[in-house]
């Protein structure tokens, strides 16, 4: 993708985003360090596309999602959504901007108020942001319930009366209530059974087409991300190691971590499984409080070189809108 077009139709622009959590110790709770949950992240999300954000637990993907819609304050960097800078916005301005950006949470059980009825939950953002008559509000609630495939008869029921998949539909209806442009989907299917996951993903795709939505789809399920995302960013220990259009990433992963991650996903085919060459990574993800010097992945990388342990790898852009942070490619770029 050419750089210029990139700027123009980007709905979400993130530059140098850092989110650090302080680590305190002792009775005085003195700050002794930082957990670098998100470190120097830059990316764009184009209007109408789905950016998949994948990585293992603790890599910072949820923190990115939360920081993007300012549920968490950033330590440094800028976030621009639809031309408005979110970072540093006053609470009043943020309140005004909120309708444009919404979130669908992982656990539909925990993110729905058990004391509110479905109509109350879906109607809450309408009460907060719009001045609608009761009748208009109810009409909008019914419209939203139709859109996500919930029967209108359920409007006066409580969340505990629903199954996981249906609860997720309630969460989606609530996120759609104010006609947002951008939705952060934080592991929206992780808590659901496989047969229900497909239903929810199909619903998200249908809504995207109909309402021209832009998604950040955070997930650890690489198969599902391949299905829903247009471009995919792979995170490891607070950084994006590779960002690439979907097909290119899955067909030909560049970063050794992406390669290992894809190779670790078991395939539902015994024939393939029998003959597949796996890359088994050694060890565990290091603590983000004390990341390794040089490349974050150098402690587990099967292709590690001397330089990886000393120097942080630069980000290399290649043709076809791919980006990778790895010394393997930096050298090649230098040589060329």
């Amino acid at each position, binding site marked *: 993708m050419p750089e210029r077009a990139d700027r123009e139709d980007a709905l979400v622009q993130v530059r140098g985003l850092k989110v650090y959590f302080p680590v305190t110790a002792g009775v005085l709770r003195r700050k002794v360090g930082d957990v670098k949950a998100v470190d120097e992240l830059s990316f764009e999300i184009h209007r109408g596309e789905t950016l998949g954000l994948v990585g*293992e637990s603790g890599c910072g993907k949820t923190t990115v999602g939360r920081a993007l819609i300012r549920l968490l304050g950033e330590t440094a960097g800028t976030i621009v959504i639809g031309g408005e800078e979110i970072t540093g916005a006053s609470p009043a301005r943020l309140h005004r901007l909120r309708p444009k950006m919404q979130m669908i949470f992982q656990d539909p059980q925990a993110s729905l108020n058990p004391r509110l009825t479905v109509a109350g939950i879906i109607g809450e953002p309408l009460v907060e942001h719009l001045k609608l008559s009761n009748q208009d509000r109810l009409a909008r609630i019914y419209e939203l319930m139709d859109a996500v495939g919930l029967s209108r008869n359920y409007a006066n029921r409580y969340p505990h009366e629903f199954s996981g998949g249906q609860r997720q539909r309630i969460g989606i209806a609530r996120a759609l209530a104010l006609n947002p442009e951008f939705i952060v989907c934080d592991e929206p299917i992780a808590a659901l059974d496989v047969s229900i996951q*497909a239903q929810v993903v199909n619903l998200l795709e249908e809504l995207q087409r109909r309402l021209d939505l832009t998604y950040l789809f955070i997930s650890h399920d690489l198969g599902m991300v391949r299905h829903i995302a247009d471009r995919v960013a792979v995170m490891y220990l607070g950084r994006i190691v590779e960002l690439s259009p979907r097909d290119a990433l899955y067909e030909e992963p560049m970063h050794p971590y992406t390669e290992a991650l894809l190779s670790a996903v*078991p395939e539902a085919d*015994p024939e393939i499984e029998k003959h597949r060459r796996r890359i*088994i990574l050694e060890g565990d993800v290091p603590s983000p409080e004390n990341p390794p010097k040089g490349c974050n992945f150098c402690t587990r990388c099967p292709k590690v070189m001397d330089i990886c342990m000393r120097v942080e790898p630069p980000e290399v852009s290649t043709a076809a809108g791919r980006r990778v942070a790895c010394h393997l490619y930096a050298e090649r770029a230098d040589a060329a």
Partner: protein
Amino acid sequence: MPATNASVLSVKDLKTVFRMRGGEVHAVNSVSFDLAPGELLGVVGESGSGKSVTMMSLIGLLPSPPAEIRSGRVEFEGRNLLEAEPAEMRRIRGGKIGFVFQDPMTSLNPVFTVGFQLAEPLRRHLGLSRAAAKNRAAELLELVGIPDPRRRLSNFPHQFSGGMRQRVMFAIAIACEPKVLIADEPTTALDVTIQAQILELVRELRKGLGMAIVWITHDLGVIAGISDRVIVMYGGQIVEQGPVAEVFSDPAHPYTQALLETVPAVRGRRSEKLRTIKGQAPVLESSPSSCSFHPRCALAFNRCRGEFPPRILLEGSHDAACFLAAEANIAANA
């Protein structure tokens, strides 16, 4: 399926019911299966399909009440485990039948060292001395790939990472060289790269130890990679059973077919729209009198609504509980 004398564990017609305030929930309905020595039997199903309850019933780990085992036989070493005395069950559990659960943090005791928890079954079941148990515990940690095992013995569970904790769980489960190992979603709480490590470990352990393993999971990919035979559960019953290659290449039950199609792959062709299974899994309030999958089945016909389909042998040792699969099989053989 014919029960062979060679099986280490044989379950026949197991029925487990939970008595709740609002009525009964029939969690396991007439489940029968055999486990051959050294084989890895995969059990797949969605949550609520009865896969965990089945395994918990047969080793007597369900609290009763509310659980009640209505009928069935579980043969292990010539005895019916369902009739065994509690003291006898305690000797079998952890000794001859080992298990690994989903969440290693909640299944390890946080206030004892890993070394103590590893030595406990060794001393109790094998009667080893304290020193011998410690040596063996270190060997076991080494076997499951934990670096510096001697020093790690004095560590507490919280000092291990998730993947390492699950390795410790495997070490405890295999400590007494059980004949049967029951692993209930052992990799579900782990990341894919760590899951790959654990699967590799299990492949290695199987080569060396030759125990039979029952591996419960909802992940079809995991099953495809490690198991010899697979059982598909739905609504508390076995809907399909067979060698893993046959079930995956030629699934007979509509539920298995749908399940295989609904999971998007990371390789190969990418479909534009995901196939879904309409509706949701049932909660059975009474013993089923019809096929429990029929409300969600695209191929259901009248017989499915009025009659409970028995498991019918298709070919070899592959069977399915579906009238349609049975008819197709008769037509194919005619």
